[in-house]
């Protein structure tokens, strides 16, 4: 399989480099573990691993920065994906401390399985909008255009909250949508609209605000729109329960509310 050009890199060099990487990374995580659980001045330390819905991507980065500033020595790690995917990972034993879901269905499932400590708290709300590229090439004016099979249209997959809510809204409006793709999460969908590959997609109003330099929003009539409520909870198997409780308290605090306001999240 190898010819002269490839055999110039000695295998020993490659193996050595790999070993160095392993040792370097191993050393890093060992250091993290030694501080994990160590109490800082605020009584919180270590790492807080937060699983958050994809629509919370930007706001969570601010929560991370804000919480870390208020609690020196604490490292917040954010893992964003579709809520249902995260819920599944948690039930499979992912070592998360906090879960922030974009719908109550997924959270209710975790509650039913006994995976959360206290009753979940609603911390934000959201509504749907239609994201279109800036120049709106499909001339989309409302949900009714989703029945037009000459347009390139996307929804989230039905199993993630934005896909579920979008289908609820379309059903309320009595529209049988003609869809070209079902994206795995809301950010994947808004990215396809932003790049102009899709004429439109049903996302949250906060996603449009977050991508306001590339997409425009088309409002969905209030009678068809859906209220998405975001619950947050500390997980039973949280490796850092103290840190998790502090983080949830921070999200629910006035400072947390300010951050949510900045990103256009409504009050629950």
């Amino acid at each position, binding site marked *: 399989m190898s010819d002269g050009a490839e055999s110039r890199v000695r295998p020993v060099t490659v193996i050595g480099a790999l070993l160095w990487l392993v040792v370097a990374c191993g050393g890093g995580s060992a250091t993290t573990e030694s501080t994990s659980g160590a109490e800082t001045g605020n009584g919180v330390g270590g790492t807080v691993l937060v699983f958050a819905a994809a629509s919370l991507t930007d706001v969570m980065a601010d929560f991370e920065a804000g919480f870390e500033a208020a609690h020196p020595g604490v490292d917040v790690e954010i893992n964003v994906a*579709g809520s249902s995917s995260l819920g*599944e990972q948690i039930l499979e034993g992912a070592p998360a401390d906090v879960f922030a879901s974009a719908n109550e269905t997924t959270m209710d499932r975790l509650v039913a399985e006994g995976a959360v400590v206290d009753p979940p708290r609603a911390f934000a709300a959201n509504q749907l909008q239609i994201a279109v590229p800036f120049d709106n090439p499909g001339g989309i004016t409302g949900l009714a255009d989703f029945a037009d099979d000459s347009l*390139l249209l996307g929804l989230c997959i039905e*199993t993630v909250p934005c896909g579920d809510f979008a289908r609820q809204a379309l059903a309320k409006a009595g529209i049988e949508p003609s869809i*070209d*793709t*079902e*994206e795995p999460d809301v950010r*994947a969908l808004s990215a396809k609209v932003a*790049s102009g590959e899709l004429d439109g997609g049903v996302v949250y109003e906060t996603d449009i605000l977050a991508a306001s330099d590339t997409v425009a929003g088309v409002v969905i009539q209030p009678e068809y729109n859906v209220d998405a409520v975001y619950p947050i909870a500390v997980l039973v198997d949280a490796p850092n329960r103290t840190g998790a409780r502090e983080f949830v308290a921070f999200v629910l605090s006035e400072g947390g509310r300010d951050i949510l306001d900045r990103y256009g999240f409504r009050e629950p």
Partner: protein
Amino acid sequence: MIDLVSDRRDPGSGSHRTARRIHRRPPWPLTVLAGLGVAVFVVPLIGLAGRAPWTDLARLVSSETVVDALWLSLVTSLLSTVLALVLGVPLAWLLARVEFPGRALARAVVTLPMVLPPVVGGAALLFALGRRGLIGGPLYDATGFLLPFSIWGVVVANTFVAMPFLVITVGGALAGLDPGFERAASSLGASPVTVFRRVTLPMIGPAVRAGAVLAWARALGEFGATVTFAGNLQGRTQTLPLAVFVARESDRDTAVAISLVLVAVSMVVLVAMRDRWWVRSL
């Protein structure tokens, strides 16, 4: 086949037998590490099988979603393999046989999709071939033809990630080939095309087959580039791996059932091809 456990208790040839056994017994550290190596592949499969809804399997894999996805997966992976063969064999030949400036760079670019995260590949394809892409944009404006969100988008994404496996396999065989045969043929008056068709191609036949199987297997399992470039829609772009991903979030039994279908289809082909693949070309 070497008989590793040959243990004829012949009292007459004691020392000779011992020497031979020491020579033949595999060194234990290698055996242990190899055993762990096997475990890396086998344990996840056991985990999957342990979760399998065996009693419900027939019903789950005959659902419309799964049948659509299986059909689409087979069609697109085979089309990608054909495309990889048509483009990849000449490409491997070019890289192995023709000296040209930038050949090392060309080799690196060709193998890049093997190490690139498929999502990155999918995004790159979108920027090049999407509706507002470098080539895709003018093409769409002129003809209205669009690769993303179509079966052809799946084929392109599959080919992008799978063809390097064929190019590498065939290129390796070409590099190991004695150029004397080709020289002899052309010195006897055969045209370059005839030399390639009648001398080179038959000699690298096993490697072409092995490369095609590898490329096909990679195409069958393709997820990241497909979902990024071609999207996800049942019956149009939702292949088996995408169906697993979607089902995993809501219906674990279906996800496991589809995974078993993927494992079974892949195993059947890989086992059927094992002689050509392992023995002759590697």
